[in-house]
């Protein structure tokens, strides 16, 4: 691929701030989902209602969201570091 023009131009502080805001937004979204799952576990515990199944589902769902958050951070910081000369 031909070297793109202006590829090293960071685009100013507002670009970086917006990127950080998007990253924070994604992390917040994943955290909210994990909190929601935690709430469902709590509700099942207080109602004595399929607590084990809730834990089982959480053991699958929560790592997925944690992983996706880590992946997004890995790509963001990895590309940022990798773009430096």
């Amino acid at each position, binding site marked *: 691929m031909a070297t793109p023009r202006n590829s090293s131009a960071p685009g100013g502080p507002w670009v970086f701030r*917006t990127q950080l805001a*998007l990253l924070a937004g994604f992390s917040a979204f994943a955290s909210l*989902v994990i909190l929601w799952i935690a709430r469902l576990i709590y*509700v099942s515990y207080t109602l004595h209602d*399929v607590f084990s199944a809730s834990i089982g589902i959480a053991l699958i769902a929560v790592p997925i969201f944690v992983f996706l958050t880590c992946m997004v951070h*890995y790509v963001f910081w*990895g*590309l940022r570091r*990798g773009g430096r000369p």
Partner: protein
Amino acid sequence: MAETDWRKEEDAILLRPIFATGRTYYLVVAVLGALVLWGLVSYIVQYENGLGVTGMNFPVSWSFYIINFVFFVGISHAGTLISAILRLSQAEWRRPITRIAEVITVLVLGIGGMNILIDLGRPDRLMNLFLYGRYQSPLLWDATSITAYFTASSVYLYIPMIPDIAVLRDRSPPGWRSFLYRVLAMGWAGTERQHKVLNRAVAIMAVLVVPIAVSVHTVVSFVFSMTVQPMWHSTIFGPYFVVGAIFSGIAALLVIMAVLRKVFHLEDYLQPIHFSYLGLLLLVMVLLWFYFTFAEYLTTYYGNEPNEMRVFFAKLSGKYAPAFWAMVACNFAIPLPILAFRRTRTILGTVIASISIIIGMWLERFIIIVPTLANPRLRQYAQGSYAPSIVEIGIMVGCFALFSLLYVLFSKLFPIVSISEVREGREKTVEIVKERLDRYKPGLGKLPRATT
């Protein structure tokens, strides 16, 4: 001038929809916008007057909205199958198709989820899901798995787009779009380290989305199979729904590919061989779908359980027979002869088969949901019937138009064919395939040959 630079690109035709806007674009957006507006007005009528304005009643409390939910979620398997599985199996012909498929996945998941909200009647009831949800219910399993799939698919769509967004960043005139591209390009400069990061991330995501996608449609099937409704409580539903999803996903992908090929003049990128290969995959799915359907209905018939037989005969020879046999025709009788022979497995042939399958798979969801609910297990409840109201039809049309509109808007902002993947294929495919052939052939290539 930045606006003319894009024309000098090797793959300028892929950038043309983004930088050049014709009258057709505005016309298409206007028409789709009008249909979306019809859907929105229909929803407002429903919101103001309640679900009584729909054809839903007792006992048929699930109908068009749930059918559309299952249908749209099913189509989402297009992205996963084509993009992730073909990427993992290193099928080089996937390159121009992956993004088309990945965009379908993200959009239909959003619209599918929206149908649940519409079906609630009162959208504020969504808060109950967050505050008082119970994992005893398959509906909560569904909500969790679809949220996970939507998130994973969005990440999986975005990461491979980064190099293409960088191309747009470098060619856009100043303005809001240039800012958007600079933000989303994540400082992409095409360095070796950046390529390593990206390739690693894409490879890992491709592995992750496949089991999530399989789980999503399995869990959607559990919403039905975990009940004891006649002809729902079946162990085959999990794999049956997954097969149906992949089936409808490939069909939708083929139709969209044909449209994009025509509209954006992508004949060099979306070649007849792509349609032929996908047509072969579709042929396999036709046979798989028939096998699962046959197994399900034969098992029901042989079991001869009275409640199930009422539903069975309602589908095969009763009120729902036209829909049932139309489903069989659309999913099996029409596509099979078209896809089975190379002479008919052309672009036109595969598109006709795909349109037939899309209609057939929508009918399949109708046939699964409505006849069962219309023939309740408890005999003291009378048989029900269902006919969609103009409100439901309006909302359904609005959903399909919204999908199309969002797709058009996406193709206006981002290249619908992955430029970086196509270029990588152009540079490296011959080497990659040659290296692979060297590994397959016994006694040739890198291994020393026998002299006697």
